[in-house]
């Protein structure tokens, strides 16, 4: 049985306005992609942020690669996250004054990995973006931007790849394409995929899923 990449226990989060959310315990095995399914307002994005260490929970614990996430503080947490976790946001959020290649190289730089242009070109080729390496974000379509965001998330070969609503507002064909792309790229880079979505169309493609 593969190692547990991510686990959470008794996680709860109280919003500033007072609402309190409790989340199910989650265990993600290495190589076994996982789905968090829930309607809007159920706290999917909040849970992803707690699992990533972006926010601290009111109660509970998160372990990533057997490291208690909230035992780490400040720059130690940042460095750990940069090495072990890739995050694909609902919006691409590319840095608009950097080219496609520079956006990806920045991820390498921030993770204190050597900037490897060949590796950047390789991941872009896998995502059919090779010819867009020197384009600026405003020169890309929405789909292309999303693929660049995926490339940026996997370039440091993280153990866990989190994706927030990657198929939102896509038709069936494009949903299938994006999912295949995510599975393929996660497989190629040795990452375990955890997707948070309200899109029930993709439920069948996951054996490991949690309902919020």
């Amino acid at each position, binding site marked *: 049985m593969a190692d547990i990449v991510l686990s959470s226990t008794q996680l709860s989060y109280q919003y500033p306005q007072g609402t309190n959310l409790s989340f199910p315990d989650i265990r993600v095995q290495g190589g076994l992609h996982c789905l968090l399914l829930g309607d809007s307002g159920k706290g999917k994005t909040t849970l992803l942020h707690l699992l990533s260490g972006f926010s601290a929970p009111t109660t509970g614990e998160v372990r990533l690669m057997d490291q208690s996430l909230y035992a780490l503080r400040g720059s130690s947490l940042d460095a750990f996250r940069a090495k072990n976790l890739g995050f694909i946001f609902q919006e691409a959020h590319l840095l608009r004054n950097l080219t496609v290649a520079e956006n990806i190289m920045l991820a390498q*730089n921030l993770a204190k990995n050597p900037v490897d242009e060949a590796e950047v070109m390789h991941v872009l080729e896998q995502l059919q973006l090779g010819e867009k390496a020197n384009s600026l974000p405003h020169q890309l379509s929405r789909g292309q931007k999303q693929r660049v965001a995926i490339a940026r998330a996997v370039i440091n070969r993280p153990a866990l790849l989190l994706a927030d609503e990657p198929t939102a507002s896509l038709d069936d064909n494009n949903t299938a394409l994006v999912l295949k792309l995510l599975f393929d790229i996660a497989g190629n880079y040795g990452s375990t995929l955890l997707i948070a979505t309200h899109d029930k169309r993709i439920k069948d493609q996951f054996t490991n899923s949690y309902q919020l």
Partner: protein
Amino acid sequence: MNSLQLVWKNITQQLGSTLLSVLLTAFGVAILCVIYITGETFEKQLSSNTKNIDLVVGEKGSPLQLILSSLYHVDNPTGNIRLDAARELSGNPFIELAVPISLGDNFNGHRLIGTEPSYLDLYNLRIKEGSLWSDSFEAVIGSDVARKQKLKIGDVFHTAHGLAADGHVHDEHPFRIVGILERSNTVVDNLILCNLESVWDVHGIAHGDHDHDDHADDGHEHSHEHDAADGHDHHDHDDAAAHHQHSDTGADGHQHHEHEDDGEIVAERPREAFVKNIGDDMLEARGDEVTALLVKYASPAAMGIVPRLVNQSTDMQAASPAIESTRLFALLGVGLDSLAVLAYVIMAIAGLSVFISLYNALKQRKYDLAVMRSMGASKTKLFSLVLVEGLVITCLGGFIGLLLGHAALFIINEQASESAAFIEALRFNSRELLLILAACLIGAIAAVIPAIKAYRTSISAVLGDR
């Protein structure tokens, strides 16, 4: 994509506001640079040009004008004093050295100083090439005169009357260069030295050992026909260049009131009334005269005695270079201080501009910063990135400001008269780096608040509410 590349990308993204901040910083630094170098140069010049001179004795009038004309060679003299009175004063036991100087002519803006060999001792001058004059119309030139006018030993030149380069040219009295002085970093570098007799002869002044009547024999009858009030200024020349050749005949001398060039009658030029014409005073035939006497005391006790002696018992005035230089610098200081205030205000506006620019940019870049945090950028990293942006903008402005400042100094120096051109505009002083540091400090201060805001970027708050 390292941090500096990222900073550069960010500041060039907001080209308009970045350029404004850079230019404001540059103008502030440029003004401060001009003030700093001009002030320092003036101070250095004030001290080096008066180092061995304790007192200047000249015609009664403004003491500051006497100092400016006799030591710094930037103003017109107050008038002339009798040489025998000056000689009498020189014999005073409180005076170690007294050197008479006589002004009146120039060559392309470089003043001609009639003096004695002891003038060189006053300024610790040494001959670099050639020798000291041994006869009239032999000249020893300063190093800058040689360089700027491309003159060498044996060259001949004609001086122009008065202290402006476009005065009447004394074609009939060519000077021959017999020596070139070593550079002394004093005003003498821009002067031409000769003996006193040469200055008198040029203006046709009767003097003890050189009677101007001799000149009449060889066809140069100068001053004797002039009216003292008119002097040489009543001559008008279509071509005012220093080497202009007269069409005068020997019999006519300078008595022409107008010249006919190419068949055209050239009208007389109106006299500039306020300019004290030294030649005119000399022409009043009061005997041998000089413009001033530069005095070095024999002992500090002379300080309280000699000036009083001169001012109370002669018709001359004594001016102290130390006192007048201090007064001059105080007067200049007011202007420089006002300019400095303007520069500080501009620098403060530059800082404000950097602050507004970074603060506004931060609003647009909050997602960028949050994403960078999600990719592992620490809070300190974001803080330093924004801080460096402020530093780069003002540092860049600082360097451009220094270049602008030196360019302005170069132009100022070019515009100054040759005798006063002593600002070394193209020489950089390591202390100017303090201006860059000051600019950087302003940039850092201006960037602190935006940097703190960047430091506090919360990934969840920014990316969770979209």
